[in-house]
C-alpha cells in the first residue's frame, strides 16, 4: 500500500497514469533517480525559458522560416528555369556562331545568315538579332530594318503547322480569297497570326508556282490543289 502510494506521488504531486508510465520509462532507460530527473527537468526548463522559447512568437518564427524556405525553393526553381533558358540562348547563339562562321563573318551575307536562322528556328529571336549585330558589326537598327523588310523573316514564334493559302493571280481568279476567308473563319485568326493553342500559323502567299492546280493550300510541305472552302476542315484535322 505504502509502496503504491509513493509511486502515485512525485514530489507531492499526484501523477496520472500517463505521467507515471513516462516517469517509469525515463527511470528505466536513463537509470536516474527521481530527484535527478527533477533536477534535470528544472535545468531543461530554465534553458527553455532563457532561449525565449516559451513566447508565442515561436510558432510565428517557425512559420516565417518555413515560408522563407518555400520562397527559396521557388526561387531556386526559377533560377533553374532561367538557367535552362540561358543555356537555350547560349545554344542558339552557338548555332548562330556556326552559321556566321559558315559565311566567314562577311557582313554582306547578312540576309543569307538571317535566312539560315529563320530556317532553323522558324523565327528570329531578339537575342539572335543582337548577336548577329555583334558578330557582323552591323548596327542592330539596320538588322531590324532588314528583318522587317523581307517577308521570309518572322520576329514572333510560329505555330506548329504552317498553313499557306495561295492568293496568286491564278488562284485568285479561281476562288482563292474564299479559301482564305474560310481558313480565317475556321481558325479564328487572321493572316500572319498564330492560333492560341500554337497549332497553326496562317499566311497568305502570292504564288507558289503551281498555278495549274489552283486554288492551292499548303500545310507544312503538303500541297492541296483544287481546294473548296468546305474541304478545309478535313484537311486541317490531319495536323495536330
Amino acid at each position, binding site marked *: 500500500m505504502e509502496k503504491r502510494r509513493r509511486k502515485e506521488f512525485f514530489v507531492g504531486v499526484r501523477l496520472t497514469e500517463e505521467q507515471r508510465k513516462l516517469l517509469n520509462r525515463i527511470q528505466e532507460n536513463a537509470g536516474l533517480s527521481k530527484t535527478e530527473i527533477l533536477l534535470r527537468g528544472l535545468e531543461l526548463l530554465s534553458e527553455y525559458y532563457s532561449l525565449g522559447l516559451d513566447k508565442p512568437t515561436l510558432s510565428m518564427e517557425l512559420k516565417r522560416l518555413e515560408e522563407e524556405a518555400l520562397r527559396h525553393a521557388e526561387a531556386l526553381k526559377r533560377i533553374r528555369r532561367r538557367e535552362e533558358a540561358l543555356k537555350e540562348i547560349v545554344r542558339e547563339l552557338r548555332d548562330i556562331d556556326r552559321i556566321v562562321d559558315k559565311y566567314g563573318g562577311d*557582313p554582306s551575307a547578312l540576309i*543569307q545568315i538571317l535566312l539560315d536562322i529563320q530556317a532553323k528556328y522558324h523565327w528570329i529571336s531578339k537575342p539572335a538579332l543582337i548577336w548577329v549585330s555583334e558578330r557582323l558589326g552591323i548596327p542592330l537598327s539596320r538588322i531590324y530594318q532588314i528583318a522587317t523588310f*523581307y517577308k521570309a523573316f518572322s520576329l514572333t514564334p510560329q505555330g506548329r503547322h504552317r498553313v499557306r493559302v495561295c492568293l496568286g*493571280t491564278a488562284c485568285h*481568279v479561281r476562288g482563292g480569297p*474564299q479559301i482564305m476567308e474560310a481558313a480565317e473563319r475556321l481558325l479564328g485568326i487572321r493572316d500572319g497570326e498564330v492560333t492560341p493553342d500554337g497549332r497553326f500559323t496562317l499566311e497568305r502567299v502570292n504564288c507558289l*508556282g503551281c*498555278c*495549274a492546280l489552283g486554288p492551292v493550300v499548303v500545310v507544312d510541305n503538303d500541297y492541296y490543289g483544287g481546294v473548296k472552302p468546305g474541304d478545309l476542315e478535313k484537311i486541317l484535322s490531319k495536323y495536330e
Partner: protein
Amino acid sequence: MKVRSPEDLEKLRREILARKKPDRPVIAVCVSTGCSALGARRVVEALREELKKHGLEDKVEIKETGCMGFCELGPRLIIYPQEIPYFKVKPEDASEIVEKTILKGEPVEKLFYTDPATGEKIRKLEEIPFYKYQVRLLLENNAKIDPKNIEDYIALGGYKALAKALTQMTPEQVLEEVKKANLRGRGGGGFPAGVKWETTKNAPGEPKYVIVNCDEGDPGAFMDRTLMEGNPHSVLEGLIIGAYAIGAKEGFIYVREEYPTAVENIATAIRQAEEYGFLGENIMGSGFSFRVKIHRGAGAFVSGESSALMSAIEGKVGEPRPKYIHTAVRGIWNKPSCLNNVETWANVPLIILKGADWFKSIGTAGSSGTKIFSLVGKVNNTGLVEVPMGITLRDLIYKIGGGIRGGKRFKAVQTGGPSGGFIPEKYLDLPVDFDELTKVGSMMGSGGMIVMDEDTCIVDVTRYYIDFLSSESCGKCVPCREGLKQALNILNRICNGQGKAEDLETLEDLCEVLRAASLCALGTTAANPIATSLKYFRDEYEAHIFEQRCPAKVCKALTAYYINPEKCQACMICLRNCPVKAISGEKDIVHVIDQEKCIRCGVCFQVCPFNSVEKYSPPTPPPARYGIKVKRVKKGEKGGA
C-alpha cells in the same frame, strides 16, 4: 574528271553515251512542284517497288526530272526509248506500267491523253494540241534530264557551246553574236541583252559582275523556276559564256528563297560544274577563270528590280535606287554589273551553238526566239508553254490552251503580272512580242499569262493587283507609296458599291503621276493594270458605281445569294455547310437564305449539287418564303452535278 579541252568534253560525252545503252528503258517522272503536289513522289516509290518485285531495278532507270509542261494533267511521266507519254498517273498504275509497257512493250491505254473534243486517245506527245503548236527550245530537255546529274546534260551536248565560245571565239565575237541574234531580256523589259553586255564590258572599273535574276515574284508565273529546277546547267552555261564575253570573274545567282528546289538544284549544278572544270581557274584550258555564288532572296517583290536586287546581294535592304547611271555601269559595290533573267541566260548557249541567224529565223523581226509563258487561269490546258514570238493570243489560248473552261466566254487575258495590263477580246489576234504587247498598254513581263472569263470581275482583279503592289511597294518614293494606297482605297470603295462618279478620273490622274514620277519600274508599271482596265472595261467600273452591280457577280457587297425554289431538292447540303447557319429548311421544304445573316461566302453556291443557288447583282434577290414544298426533279435531269 576535269575537262581541260573541247576534245576532253567530246571524249567524256562519248563515254557517257557508251555507258547508257540506248535501248535501256528509262521511266522519266516529273517531280516538279506541280506534279509533286499531285503525288508524283508516291508514283516514283510505287514504280521502284514494282521494278524490285520483277527484279528489274538494275535494268530499268527511273529518272526524276523537272517540269514537263502540262501541269494540269500531272503526275506526268514519259517512258523511253519509245517516248510514251502518260498522264494523271497514280501509284496504283505502277504495276500495269511495269508489266505492260516495260516488260511487253505494250502501252497502257487509259493513261494516254484524251482529246476532249474527239474523245480520242493520243499516243504521241507532239500530236497533243497542247504540244503541237509549241516550239520547245529551252524546255525540251527538261523531260530528258535529271537536273542533279551533270552527265545527262553533257550527254545531250551540254557545255559544247561553252567549249566553242572559249576556244574558237574571242569575247568580242561572242558579244557580236548575241547582239546580232537580237536576244532581248526575257525578264519583262525586253532590253537587248547584247547591248547591256557591251555597256558592262566597256564600263570602267574592275571587277565586273554577271548576275542571274531568278527572283520571280510575279504571282502566276513560274517559268524561271522551271528552268532552274529542271535544267540548271543550261542557265549556268549561258552565264559562264556571258561572263567570258563581258570579262567578269565573278557571278551571282539570285534565287528566291520560296523556291527551295531551285536553290538546291542550282547549288548541285555549280558544285558539279566545278568538279568537271566548267567553273573555276583556267576553264577548259582557255585561261579564263570564273566563279559563281548563290544569293537567296528573302521574299520581296521589289527586290527583283535590278538596282534593288544588287542592294540585296550587298546584304542591304532590297530597295531600288535612282538609276541616273545604269547598273550595267555601276551596280554591285558600284562596279559594272550585268544582270539578266534566267530565261535570257538559258538562250545564250543555243545562240552560240546554232548561230545568230538560226535564232533570228524564229520569232518576229523585232523579237527573235521563243518565249516561255505560264498559261493559267480559266483556260482548259494550264501549264508551261514555250512558243515562238509572234504567235497570236488566240492561238495560244484556243489552240494550245484548249479554250475557256466550262464553255464560258472569254473576257480578257492579263500578261506581264501586276506590271502588265488586261487585253480584251478585240485584240486576240495580236501577235505576242515585246512591242505589240506594249502598244496595247500591257507588256511581255516575265511571261505570266492569266486567262479570265465572264466570271472574273475586272475591277476586283485590278484591286487585287494594286493591293499586291501597294503592299510590295518599298515606300521609298512618294508616288508609289501614296499613289498606290489612294488607288487601292478608291478601288476598294468601288468594289464595296460606294464608288463615286469622279473616281474614274482620279484613277486616271493617279496613273499619270505613277508613270511620270516613280523611282523604279514597280511604280511606273503599276499604272498598267488600272489604265488598261479603265480603257477596255470602263463599263464594268460604271456598272459598279452607277448601278451597284458587279457584272461578274464577284464583288461581295454587290452580290447576293438566292436559292431557286424551282430547283432546290431540299438535300440539306448547303444548310450543313453554311458557316453562319443562315440557311433554314427541312426535308421536302425548299431551303431559304436569311439575307440578314448571310456573309456571302459562296459556300452554298459551290456545294449545291443541283445548281439551285443563284447569284444576284445588284444584291436584290426575289423575296423568299419559307414552307414551299420541293418540286422533285427526275433522276438524270439533275442540274449538272
